[in-house]
């Protein structure tokens, strides 16, 4: 029996879909059977990030309404044969699926995989309730910004209310240079506010944009820092003890001078 993780954030655009695609791919690289479910109904995205958009025939809503069987809707990844995607529907109908249907679907899928990752839409409405309905655990994604952390806090409260205990935190888009100059919240600041277990940190990295352009998750690129971060995160999910990565890749000359003088840039 597999475990269902919902990847959620409250605030939009902080990296839920990127995180789902990368963790899912990295888990498949480790040999696990993985199913990714795009629960962002009406704003289908995960297929594009995974590079599988041309292969969609049926979607989540079709399965939930019995218009096709689960097997017919699951798209197998080109690169890993244990990795599957269940795409979101592009319907405008917000009530195309309800939490009970979603829960039943997760129950059915988790019987045949090791990890089921649900990519949650932004917000705290129906889409959120659907996405968490079948989840055993939650991964909360935030960026080191006031608004994103605040929304993450709201989400953590709502997860508790839905009886999903001990959510895990990913802090995405960290810029080491800005942290060093005192212009970005650091990991400790965010953890102090949210008080949940840290699963990992991911640097702000141009390779994410390149990999999204190509439809190839960054974990496939051995030179991508963000990819490495997501590979580490995935190993932690499987229970391995992996130290947090050092995001610094050498400071510039001026940074060093400033640091030696004890000055900060404004």
């Amino acid at each position, binding site marked *: 029996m597999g475990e269902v993780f919902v990847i959620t954030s409250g605030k939009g655009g902080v990296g839920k879909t990127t995180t789902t695609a990368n963790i899912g791919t990295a888990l498949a690289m480790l040999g696990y059977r993985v199913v990714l479910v795009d629960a962002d109904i009406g704003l289908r995205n995960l297929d594009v990030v995974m590079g599988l958009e041309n292969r969609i025939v049926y979607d989540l809503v079709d399965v939930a309404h019995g218009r096709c069987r689960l097997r017919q809707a699951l798209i197998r990844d080109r690169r890993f044969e244990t990795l599957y995607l269940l795409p979101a529907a592009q319907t405008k109908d917000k009530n195309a699926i309800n939490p009970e249907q979603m829960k039943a679907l997760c129950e059915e899928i988790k019987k045949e995989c090791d990890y089921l990752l649900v990519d949650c839409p932004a917000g705290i409405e129906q889409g959120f309730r659907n996405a968490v309905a079948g989840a055993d655990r939650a991964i909360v994604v935030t960026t080191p910004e006031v608004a994103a*952390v*605040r929304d993450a*806090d709201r989400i953590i409260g709502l997860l508790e209310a839905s009886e999903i205990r001990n959510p895990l935190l990913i802090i995405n888009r960290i810029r080491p240079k800005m942290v060093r*100059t005192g*212009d970005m919240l650091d990991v400790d600041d965010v953890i102090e*506010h949210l008080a949940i277990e840290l699963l990992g940190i991911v640097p702000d990295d141009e390779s994410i944009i390149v990999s999204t352009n190509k439809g190839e998750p960054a974990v496939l690129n051995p030179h991508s820092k963000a990819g490495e971060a997501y590979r580490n995160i995935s190993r932690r999910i499987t229970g391995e003890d992996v130290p947090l990565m050092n995001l610094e890749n050498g400071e510039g000359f001026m940074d060093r001078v400033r640091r030696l003088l004890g000055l*900060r840039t*404004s």
Partner: protein
Amino acid sequence: MLELLQRIFRRDSYKTSKDVAHERLRLVLMHDRLDLSPKVLDELRTDLMNVIKEYMVIDEKSMEINLEKDQNCVALVANIPVIRMKRLPNS
């Protein structure tokens, strides 16, 4: 002159934007989390009343508790009319 020195040695008094963000987050989360449900507020009220009743007789009906917020702080304000003090063992 002092200002100039401070500007050169921006260490103690100078706030980085991260410090500002940290402080704003502290306040905004406090306000958000203060949005206690009436049920929780009621439990707090009952607990508080039971502790105080060990020491004095209070007017339970006109007891008021509130969370008051202004821009920089939050206070739990209680107004509890005391009717009589109990005779405590060592007074």
